């Protein structure tokens, strides 16, 4: 009986997989499992960041009973008398990053035009490394220069102590300049030649070509750069904290001490007890930063959809 169940020898040879093939299959699995593990880790990290920050940030309202509208629109930040209005910080963050974008955008677009339209040969050789180096300078160094050069300068020219929204915006604008410039340069460089040539062929001057053809075509890409720059400015902590003055109220002028979300977190996180209302309120501000990141990424995505040259 048993002999009948035995596989005949001619089939046996086929069933045995060759050694090399087995080795390959094992390798293939090792590679696949390893790389999938690395990618899964990325997803675990992002999910846990969102989960932990959100659960801490929400507990201000859910556990400590601070009202959401009081937090978002309250103007008084007095933790000792249980007033947790974060509007001055939200206001400070938005104003500094908007102003930074307003200052940096024209400069960056001009730099990008210089590299691609005016002197494509040596302009790129000079400005490209300059922009890369600006991107490489650490943020604390920007803060240090802001504190030791910019603030005394503003103090001597304008009324006030020199610290404030103006100083913060200028420091941030230099920090986001490379972001906007490199994206604008890439967009300008990938513009098809024939568009420009058609314009020149009609007798347009260089500026007419730039303002009438080049800029309108690459505008979505430039805006992408501006939004990415603003996102960076919004999340930047130490450089701003060093020059903005850190007063917890809405400033009445650009040269008055103010605060941003990041600066108040930087200063107070280690001075407050984990789990206290004040500490949780700081986590709520971190949650705002996190949510704004998603908003910025979303806006960039929407802009990119329009970038089809």
């Amino acid at each position, binding site marked *: 009986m048993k002999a009948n169940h035995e596989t005949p020898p001619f089939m046996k040879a086929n069933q045995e997989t060759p050694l090399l093939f087995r080795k390959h299959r094992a390798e293939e699995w090792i590679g696949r499992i390893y790389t999938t*593990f690395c990618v899964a880790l990325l997803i675990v990290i992002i999910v846990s960041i969102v989960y932990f*920050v959100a659960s801490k940030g929400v507990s201000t309202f859910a556990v400590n009973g601070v009202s959401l509208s009081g937090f978002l629109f309250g103007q008084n930040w007095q933790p000792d008398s249980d007033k947790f209005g974060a509007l001055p910080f939200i206001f400070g963050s938005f104003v500094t990053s908007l102003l930074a974008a307003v200052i940096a955008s024209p400069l960056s677009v001009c730099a990008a035009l*210089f590299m691609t339209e005016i002197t494509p040969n040596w302009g790129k050789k000079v400005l490209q490394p*300059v922009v890369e180096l600006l991107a490489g300078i650490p*943020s604390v160094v920007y803060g240090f220069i802001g504190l030791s050069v910019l603030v005394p300068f503003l103090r001597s020219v304008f009324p006030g102590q020199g610290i404030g929204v103006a100083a913060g915006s200028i420091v941030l604008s230099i920090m986001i300049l490379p972001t906007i410039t490199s994206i604008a340069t890439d967009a300008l460089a990938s513009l098809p030649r024939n568009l420009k040539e058609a314009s020149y062929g009609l007798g347009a001057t260089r500026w007419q070509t730039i303002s009438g053809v080049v800029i309108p075509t690459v505008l979505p890409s430039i805006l992408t750069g501006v939004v990415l720059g603003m996102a960076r400015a*919004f*999340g930047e902590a130490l450089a701003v904290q060093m020059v903005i003055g850190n007063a917890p109220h809405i400033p009445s002028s650009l040269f008055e001490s103010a605060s941003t979300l990041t600066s108040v977190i930087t200063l107070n996180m280690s001075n407050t007890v984990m789990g206290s209302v004040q500490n949780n309120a700081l986590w709520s501000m971190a949650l705002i930063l*996190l949510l704004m990141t998603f908003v910025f990424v979303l806006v960039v995505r929407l802009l990119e959809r329009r970038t089809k040259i």
Partner: protein
Amino acid sequence: MSAKLKDRIATFVIIAFSALIIALLVGMLGYILVKGISHIDWHFLTAEPETIKAGGGIGPELFNSVYLLILTLIITIPLGIGAGIYMAEYAKEGRITVSIRLVVEVLSSFPSIVVGLFGLLVLVNTFNFGFSVLSGALVLTIFNMPLMVRVTEQAFRNVPREQKEAGLAMGLSRWKIITSILLPVALPAIITGTILAAGRIFGEAAALLFTAGLTTPKLDFTDWNPTSLHSPINPLRPAETLSVHIWKVNSEGLSPDAAEIAAGSSAVLVLMVLIFNLLARWAGRLLYRKFTSIK
């Protein structure tokens, strides 16, 4: 105003703004280097920092920065390259790949302070690593991973198709092709990207405030036992890095020469970043020549 005059004015403005940017960089670098380099000497680079007296150095901070960088790279490089390989070679176009791409994008645009807070909550408190080199390195890994993924994916995609097809025709497994054919060709670009990322890690401070801490225990450079608190290589000791030190000296420095120390430390930091930049270019070019035999 005639079109020609407008053109001239616009050209002038563009050139003037570009010159302004160059002047800004030259001015800033000049300021830091002129102010700082006179303060840099062997004593400054090796001595312990002083809190109240003048004449403090940045020895432990410099060591911490380098140690943290090395530890971060040891963790990041295998993970980042692995994920990058997945994106370039294994991911199929579809909803999952699109969402992974989104994850990488969002992760790279998180504010560093938020990632630092996450580190404080999870690594420092929940996992009980405390303010330590390890917590700092893990947080910096979170920053660096998306960068490495992008660099690796781009480098793999730039490898000529024929090389991969040749491997497939030889009957090699996909993993073998990745490790023996694609990786060597992609390596120069990956190394260049890694060195540039290293420059960024070196300057990062906001995330380290809450993870690596603001203090350094007194280091004993003869003690190489990794479990002792005073050993420089103990990964569970707090470690204030150079960039955190600049921030601390500027915002709460009490010593009379705080401004000089900040200037000197900034100069060291900027010089390191410059060196990383030059190294990245040089290494990229050298390795590219070596691996591709293109002169």
